[in-house]
């Protein structure tokens, strides 16, 4: 009896592990910033490089940091979703224009619509490194105390907005 059960058991255990492994997303690397203060930055704005925006200016507000670039294909897929989110005015949306040409970025927003309250320039990608950015687009949610509460890697979909972002933003606004 044991002779037949042992291989079956081993198979079952292996199958469970493999099933878990297959369903994990290797691109989803847990961010070490969750529940930690957002890394500070002071950056030039895309609209007017003579003006800057810093993380300190955003204290007291719930805000999203969306890392984007005009060269990024997935950002294009994500863009209409962000436009729809911006219409709901649930949070301030800041765009971190990552390793992009300001002219390209401006054209892109003019053509596809601008969901961002402000876009800031990170042409060298240094702020990206500070925020642990490794794949564009990425979206961070920061609460009123300036603490990172959530990170989404890859394009945000309508379903992500529905199931994760809206409930989170509502609770954070009520905090």
């Amino acid at each position, binding site marked *: 009896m044991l002779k037949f059960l042992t291989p079956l058991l081993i198979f079952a255990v292996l199958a469970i592990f493999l099933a878990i492994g297959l369903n994990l997303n290797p691109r989803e690397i847990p961010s070490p910033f969750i529940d930690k203060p957002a890394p500070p930055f002071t950056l030039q704005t895309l609209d007017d490089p003579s003006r800057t925006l810093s993380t300190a200016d955003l204290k007291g507000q719930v805000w999203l940091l969306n890392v984007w670039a005009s060269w990024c294909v997935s950002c294009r897929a994500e863009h209409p979703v962000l436009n729809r989110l911006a219409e709901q005015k649930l949070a301030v949306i800041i765009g971190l224009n990552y390793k992009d040409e300001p002219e390209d970025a401006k054209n892109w927003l003019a053509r596809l619509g601008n969901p961002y309250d402000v876009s800031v320039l990170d042409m060298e*990608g240094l702020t990206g*490194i500070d925020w642990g950015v490794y794949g564009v687009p990425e979206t961070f949610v920061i609460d009123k105390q300036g603490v990172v509460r959530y990170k989404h890697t890859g394009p945000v979909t309508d379903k992500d907005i529905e199931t994760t972002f809206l409930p989170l933003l509502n609770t954070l606004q009520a905090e």
Partner: protein
Amino acid sequence: MHVTNHSINAIMRIIFLVFFLLWGVQAIAAAVEVKNFDTPEQERVYNSLISELRCLVCQNQTIADSNADLAKDLRAQVYKMLQQGKSRQEIVDFMTQRYGDFVLYNPPMKAKTSLLWLAPLLFLVIGLLVAWSVVRKKRLATRSESAHDSAQSEEIRRLLEQGDDR
């Protein structure tokens, strides 16, 4: 017709050869990045660090191996911090603060990673146990077999002796 086939073959071979050779050159290009160091020690730390940090875009490459933009930026970051006189540990901390332990090819021993570190030992123990039980079973089997043999030969001898008596 036969000749043309032959020459086409030869040309194809040369094209493939050139292609693969160029490919190799491109792969090496990532490694050949001219950087000037103040001391040989600094260069050694730089080289060992970039071959221990993971490129997060390509995941199965270190930032030394990878041509990805992010890998290039992280190499530059490591270089810059070394120039600023930062220690090896400070740079590793800088990277893990931003990218988590995943950025390290040598994950630190922690409660969360204990399974990762102890699993090989666990499998070794399981293997030894299985080997031990198999060997033991085999030995028991041969022992009873030889016992069986001696009983049988005893019987044969008895029968033979009986035969002699007659």
